[in-house]
């Protein structure tokens, strides 16, 4: 009886959603292939663990940045294409502060301010100059918030009643303006930031070791703390609940007496703050940055947010980590050049088979 039912259900699935069956079959095959590779020694378990770790690190950054994108989408009703450049603003303003704190006395103020001093002279690492890292992170958050609020006042507030498409196009303009403002001040060259030995630990995973350096650890700890912070804020504080209420139902929020303009300002404040910190931290991990830093990440951030269910901040967090891990795990089969394609393939598959995203409909709750 049970077998017959399973058979009927299976047949229904094959006839109604053949695509899903094919994709699931490919996923199972890939998993079996991974097991085979591990058993035959073609791929080491530690290599896979290393991919997962690297993917998690990048994924947390994408998730952190995705929270803001998701919040703007659900509260202001538009896809903000300038969000990536908030990461760039955070990275550049934060690293300027780090250089000023760490390099005072070794180089002129001008060199430090424009990040033209040699990274080797300044010698920033999270362990050698922890204070400069903290100062940089704080400045990155504060500066990005100020710029986001200024842009809201200048651009988005006069357009509050405009549709999502007009706002989206305006945000593309803002993105270009921000990016080339950064170019205007700092130039287009890719610049090194950190120098010196970054302390590492190399724990053994079964058949080999993986490497975790102090900058990755700083990134992971900061990202997780910020995510926990935003979770507590949205779930436990009255204003956080009001933000969720407004993202759920704007009209009702209005007749309930929730101050909608203030909620919008806080949306920018939180979203931009997290984006700024994400930009700063990714530059710390890579040890370098250029004016394209955020723009290049924006598509991945969108992929994460869409994957998780646009409008859901938990979806953005989980989506970010999934995108990061998939991208790195694909290296088992694919050359590095194709890893980005793998990340987007996952997004496309989710859109095909679960268009509302993993957490779709849950919103910020």
């Amino acid at each position, binding site marked *: 009886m049970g077998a017959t039912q399973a058979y009927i259900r299976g047949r229904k699935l094959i006839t109604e959603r053949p695509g899903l069956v094919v994709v699931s079959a490919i996923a199972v095959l890939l998993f079996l292939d991974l097991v085979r590779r591990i058993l035959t020694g073609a791929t080491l378990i530690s290599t896979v663990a290393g991919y997962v770790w690297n993917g998690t690190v990048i994924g947390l950054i994408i998730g952190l940045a995705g929270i803001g994108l998701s919040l703007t989408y659900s509260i202001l009703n538009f896809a903000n294409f300038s969000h990536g450049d908030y990461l760039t603003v955070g990275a550049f303003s934060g690293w300027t502060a780090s250089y000023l704190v760490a390099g005072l006395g070794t180089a002129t103020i001008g060199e430090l301010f424009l990040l033209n001093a040699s990274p080797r002279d300044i010698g920033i690492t999270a362990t050698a100059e922890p204070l400069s890292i903290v100062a940089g992170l704080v400045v990155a958050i504060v500066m990005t918030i100020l710029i986001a609020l200024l842009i809201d006042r200048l651009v988005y507030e006069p357009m509050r009643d405009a549709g999502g498409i007009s706002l989206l196009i305006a945000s593309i303009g803002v993105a270009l303006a921000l990016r080339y403002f950064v170019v205007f001040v700092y130039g287009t060259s890719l610049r090194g930031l950190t120098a010196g030995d970054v302390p590492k630990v190399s724990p053994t995973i079964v058949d080999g070791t993986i490497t975790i350096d102090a900058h990755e650890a700083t990134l992971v700890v900061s990202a997780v703390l910020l995510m926990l912070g935003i979770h507590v804020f949205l779930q436990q504080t*009255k204003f956080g*609940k*009001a933000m*969720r*209420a407004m993202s*759920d*139902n704007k*009209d*009702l*929020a*209005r*007749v*309930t*007496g*929730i*101050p*909608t303009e203030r909620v919008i300002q806080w949306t920018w404040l939180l979203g931009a703050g997290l984006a700024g910190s994400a930009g700063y931290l990714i530059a710390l991990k890579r040890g370098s940055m250029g004016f394209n830093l955020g723009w290049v990440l924006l598509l991945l951030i969108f992929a994460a947010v869409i994957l998780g269910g646009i409008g859901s901040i938990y979806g953005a967090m989980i989506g970010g980590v999934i995108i990061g891990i998939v991208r790195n795990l694909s290296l088992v089969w694919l050359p590095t050049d194709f890893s980005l394609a793998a990340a987007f393939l996952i997004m496309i598959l989710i859109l095909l088979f679960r268009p509302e995203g993993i957490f779709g409909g*849950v*919103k*910020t*709750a």
Partner: protein
Amino acid sequence: MSGSQQGATQGAERTDDLLETRDLDAGYGDLQILDGVDMRVGDEEYVTIVGPNGAGKSTVMKSVFGLTTHMGGTVTFAGEDITALNPEDIIHKGMSYVPQSDNVFDTLTVEENLEMGAYILDSVPEEQLRVIYDRFPILEERKTQKAGTLSGGQQQMLAMGRALMLDPDLLMLDEPSAGLAPDLVDEMFDRIDSINEAGTAILMVEQNAKEALRRCDRGYVLVQGQNRYEDSGDALLNDEEVRQEFLGG
């Protein structure tokens, strides 16, 4: 017997009115819906607005609450001119509004919905919360549940509970029986009666016109953005013209 034809001066004769609209014109953007609406709700009074679809019944409430484009006339509440104030300001005056649909925050818990009802206060008014839980025990049972998972009737109770958190002098209800299973409609009207008996004035728009008129103190028949008849609920129910034209005989 015939329903009294509404005159613009009628509202002015009374002084104890809680809410009064005088010659109110309002609409959305360029589209005018209300055309010289004169209505009043006394202290602790229970008033319903009935009328055909598209007459502008809901627009009256939205206009009182500052959600439409004001085009003329005045709205006074408790002796204060509140014409064209924002909803954010009006909520402070002692008036709450329950929209017809989408009237709970689906993704928030029942308890959080009620907390949002008291957003403008510094802290959650525990006593009033107790009153609401006593009035709607099901809300207390389900307080940690997401509002979107409640049944239609429970959502309606939650919407009313949310609006009552500020212990308003006037509660405006837009089609409270819409979408409810027939056996729940009576129960909903009983609850509204008891809210009114506890001292809250009610202004209600209802599609279920006969039942609404039976329950209320006074009723208005709104036609094409104008109030055509005004009388006690029973008188309107028995008015031959009103019956023929608007209550289906």
